[in-house]
């Protein structure tokens, strides 16, 4: 018996490791020697020791004379080879038209989404990057703590803060206060021009980089009643840009133009048509202006920007802010303000602060877009990977021959990556046109994108696009390229290909499964969100909103309008209210029992005598407000009675409670109703009668006949009364719909992407089905000849897919449901109930569609004539 059979082979892993680093010229000799000695040592010292010697020997092989020479460059002229790669790639594309088009179209669709995401994200991140001092500019933001009630983050601060910083700050070398309120009509030559703009401190142009076309930047805003206008506005008003010295009228004040600005970039979070001098407020004070300038608590539309001086730092500046805040907070009751600093470049995209100067996109929605785009992209890359692996058998011969001729693994890898990149570049071209097509739709997707993005294409974006195409090609091509370059020459040339194919087939199943899981998950998510949205819209509010039109009164006396409207035949009844219910606006105050103990947060609203009847509120005890009753009447919900322990509804009538400093008399009790949105739980509620209160909305109930005609008449009545004023009227149901526009825009986004994802995976599925049936056509034919029925054959071909679909659905359903719970339902109080069939039903639909896709192929294969398929052999 020879030693080789007596002892185990030397450690394989070490041998492979040695092979990996050893120069191939010496490997045979050296490994042979090591192995010979190993077996001899086994006989002398035993297996364990000789294995140790073997390992030690290999480690000591680690020396320059043994290690592979690292080739840094090929000296050859390889252009012919590259040409050949390209030619072969094109030939392959044109030979398999179906597969190529599935690949290219699938990639193109998803890349269009990717391009959208790239343009979108790069635009968002270019916000406010054009300012020279961008890294030194900070905005002061207030965290306002209403003691005992709420804490809210605002992007604003008081102008008092700005003035104190200007006077005493040692950390900021420039302060610019801005009041966001130069809006409305500018009048020139009796023509009105609607504008948006701000009042700003005199250093506005020194701090921010908004270049002037004409005028002196040093003096631009240094006098009261001066204004800077943009080029665009100048052309609109004067049809010229050299208009320094002209005068514009606004609210009976005359402003002199001291400069014309180049149109500010779209990527500025400060958006304006005109900037007026804030000094105007001091020069012509009014109670309101004085309050805005000097009141610590009036901070709702004023902004302070400062430039941190070079010899200061964030911490010292923050300490200074804290000191000022401490001094001012001491002078006020009920609230406290904590100022914070936010870098100019961090303002957009934002983290959800209130009262931004213009709409600021929340970071969350950007992440959403990016993640969804990535998912769709991966799905399309999977298609490419999958179909390429499926076809790799056909190309195995090519790989084998190339290897025999001398191609290295790395070269083959490169060849297949190049092919993938070629496909992705072709897809990019189509994607680019698709992108242009869907761009307007994307911008209109929600209010944020509409007002903040233009998706303009810049050279930088084109560069990103090209890098993107390369990356996608690389991503999609890596796996097939790796598998192809690993194909063993000897197997290919001998014709053994079954082994490598079964391995690839498993991988393909996993990929199909993954894709399918994504599709099913998307569809379930969208379906659930859609249901929740419908539920929110058709939610039983406890009062009726059918055929109600709300007219925005803005504090005008409703009696004039109501007399006019009552004359219109289509109008059934009218009422007025302070603000609308169920549209997101809420007002809450502390209410307590008459002894002043037991205080409880109570939401409330002011209504007139007709409101409850008009809106069909159910009065369960007592009566409506009466015109001849006392001034302190109130109508409350049942839940308030419980909280204040006022007994049952009948007992509560005539009792009083404390609201602010007044005693309120309960004259009626209404059933609980949903004054808030599906995001709020029901709290105690009170309707308050306040005969002097200005009402903001008039609710007009139409009787349902000729609604359009009635609306026309209502508008005419309004224009007759207020010829100068805009008429704002919306149906209640539209107002509620707008309240949930966040949900609806996510549904639109998700829906679009779900559609794309499903289309892509169905395309992929089609490709795989075609491939499977083609490669098994002989088997099918023989089965058929031997007597298999059509059903047998279709089942045979679809069985594997069906298993994949079922497994994917089982994975996708709980995943989608938990995502839905954590993403959508997170702060929703009133939720839809989700049953098994709601989830499984959607999955079933997708499975059926997928089976039909496959069925179309398997059915055709099963029906094809045996004579045709067997003839060629």
């Amino acid at each position: 018996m020879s030693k080789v059979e007596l002892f185990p082979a030397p450690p394989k892993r070490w041998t492979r490791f040695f092979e990996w680093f050893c120069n191939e010229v010496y490997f045979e000799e050296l490994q042979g020697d090591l192995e010979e000695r190993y077996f001899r040592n086994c006989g002398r010292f035993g297996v364990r020791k000789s294995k140790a010697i073997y390992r030690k020997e290999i480690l000591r092989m680690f020396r320059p004379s043994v290690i592979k020479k690292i080739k840094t460059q090929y000296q050859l002229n390889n252009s012919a080879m590259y040409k050949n790669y390209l030619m072969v790639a094109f030939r392959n594309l044109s030979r398999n038209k179906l597969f190529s088009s599935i690949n290219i179209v699938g990639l193109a669709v998803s890349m269009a989404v990717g391009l959208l995401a790239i343009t979108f994200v790069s635009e968002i991140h270019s916000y406010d990057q054009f300012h020279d001092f961008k890294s030194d500019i900070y905005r002061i933001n207030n965290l306002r703590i209403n003691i005992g009630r709420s804490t809210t983050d605002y992007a604003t601060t008081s102008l008092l803060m700005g003035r104190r910083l200007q006077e005493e700050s040692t950390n900021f070398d420039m302060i610019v206060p801005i009041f966001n309120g130069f809006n409305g009509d500018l009048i020139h030559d009796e023509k009105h021009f609607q504008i948006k703009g701000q009042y700003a401190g005199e250093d506005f142009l020194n701090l921010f980089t908004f270049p002037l076309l004409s005028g002196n930047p040093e003096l631009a805003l240094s006098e009261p009643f001066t204004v800077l206008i943009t080029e665009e506005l100048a052309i609109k008003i004067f049809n010229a840009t050299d208009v320094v010295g002209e005068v514009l009228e606004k609210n009976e004040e005359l402003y002199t133009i001291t400069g014309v600005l180049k149109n500010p970039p779209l990527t500025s979070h400060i958006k304006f048509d005109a900037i007026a001098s804030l000094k105007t407020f001091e020069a012509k004070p009014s109670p309101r202006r004085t309050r805005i300038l000097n009141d610590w608590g009036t901070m709702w539309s004023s902004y302070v920007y400062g430039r941190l001086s070079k010899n200061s730092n964030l911490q010292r500046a923050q300490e200074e802010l804290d000191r000022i805040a401490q001094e001012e907070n001491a002078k006020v009751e009920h609230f406290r303000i904590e100022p914070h600093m936010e870098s100019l470049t961090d303002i957009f995209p934002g983290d959800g602060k209130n009262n931004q100067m213009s709409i600021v996109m929340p970071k969350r929605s950007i992440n959403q877009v990016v993640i969804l785009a990535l998912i769709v992209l991966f799905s399309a890359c999977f298609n490419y990977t999958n179909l390429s692996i499926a076809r790799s058998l056909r190309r195995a011969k090519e790989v084998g021959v190339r290897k025999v001729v001398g191609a290295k693994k790395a070269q083959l890898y490169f060849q297949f990556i190049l092919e993938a990149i070629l496909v992705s570049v072709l897809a990019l071209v189509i994607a680019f046109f698709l992108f242009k097509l869907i761009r307007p739709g994307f911008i209109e997707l929600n209010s944020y994108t509409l007002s903040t993005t233009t998706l303009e294409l810049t050279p930088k974006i084109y560069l990103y696009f090209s890098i993107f195409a390369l990356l996608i090609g690389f991503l999609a091509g890596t796996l097939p390229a790796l598998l192809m370059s690993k194909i063993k020459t000897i197997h290919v040339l001998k014709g053994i290909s079954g082994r490598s194919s079964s391995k690839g087939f498993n991988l393909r199943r996993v990929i199909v499964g993954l894709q399918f899981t994504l599709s099913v998950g998307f569809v379930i998510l969208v379906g659930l969100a859609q249901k929740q949205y419908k539920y929110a819209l058709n939610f039983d509010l406890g009062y009726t909103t059918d055929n109600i039109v709300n007219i925005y009164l803005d504090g005008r006396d409703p009696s004039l309008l109501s007399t006019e409207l009552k004359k219109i035949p289509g109008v059934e009844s009218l009422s007025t209210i302070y603000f609308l219910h169920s549209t997101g606006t809420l007002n809450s105050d502390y209410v307590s029992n008459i002894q002043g103990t037991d205080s409880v947060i109570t939401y409330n609203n002011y209504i007139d005598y007709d409101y409850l009847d008009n809106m069909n509120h159910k009065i369960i005890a007592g009566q409506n407000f009466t015109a001849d009753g006392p001034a302190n009447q109130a109508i409350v919900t049942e839940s308030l009675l419980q909280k204040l322990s006022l007994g049952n509804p009948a007992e509560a009538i005539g009792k009083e409670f404390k609201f602010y400093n007044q005693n309120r008399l309960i004259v009626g009790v209404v059933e609980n109703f949903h004054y808030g949105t599906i995001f709020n739980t029901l709290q105690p509620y009170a309707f308050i009668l306040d005969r002097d209160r200005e009402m903001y909305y008039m609710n007009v109930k139409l009787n349902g006949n000729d609604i359009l005609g009635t609306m026309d008449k209502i508008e005419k009545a309004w224009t007759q009364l207020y010829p100068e004023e805009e008429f704002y009227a919306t149906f209640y149901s539209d107002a509620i719909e707008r309240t949930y526009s966040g949900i609806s825009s996510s549904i639109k986004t998700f829906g679009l992407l779900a559609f794309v994802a499903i289309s892509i995976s169905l395309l992929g599925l089609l490709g795989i089905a075609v491939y499977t049936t083609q490669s098994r056509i002989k088997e099918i034919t023989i089965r058929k000849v031997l007597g298999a029925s059509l059903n047998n054959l279709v089942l045979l071909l679809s069985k594997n897919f069906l298993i994949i679909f079922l497994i994917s659905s089982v994975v996708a359903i709980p995943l989608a449901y938990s995502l839905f719970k954590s993403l959508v339902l997170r702060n929703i109080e009133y939720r839809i109930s989700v049953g098994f069939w709601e989830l499984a039903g959607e999955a079933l639909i997708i499975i059926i569609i997928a089976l039909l896709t496959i069925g179309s192929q398997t059915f055709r294969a099963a029906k094809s004539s045996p004579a045709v398929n067997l003839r060629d052999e």
Partner: protein
Amino acid sequence: MKGTYLGEFQEIVLLTIIVLNENAYGVTIQDEIEKRTNRTVSRGALHTALTRLDEKGFITSIYGGATSERGGRRKRYYQVTNLGKQALQEARSIRDELWSQVPKFAFQNI
């Protein structure tokens, strides 16, 4: 001139190959050196020396038969070239000359 210098280990390797005559390949050379010098030599170190000698043209090699003990890998047999033999002689004559100059009393007290 690079190449004429013969290191101590290289000299031993060369001599060993000559001693082993027809049967000089990796394993036998390694064993022979270990046996004679009573020190362990790694195959890697031997390879480095062989490569150097080959670069200098002192040895040549041919592939021989494979055995199952070697996992089917061929042996590489080494032979010393005339140039190698010349170098050995040169090294020896330098040494002999030096030895002849050594005074006799230098080794008396060992």
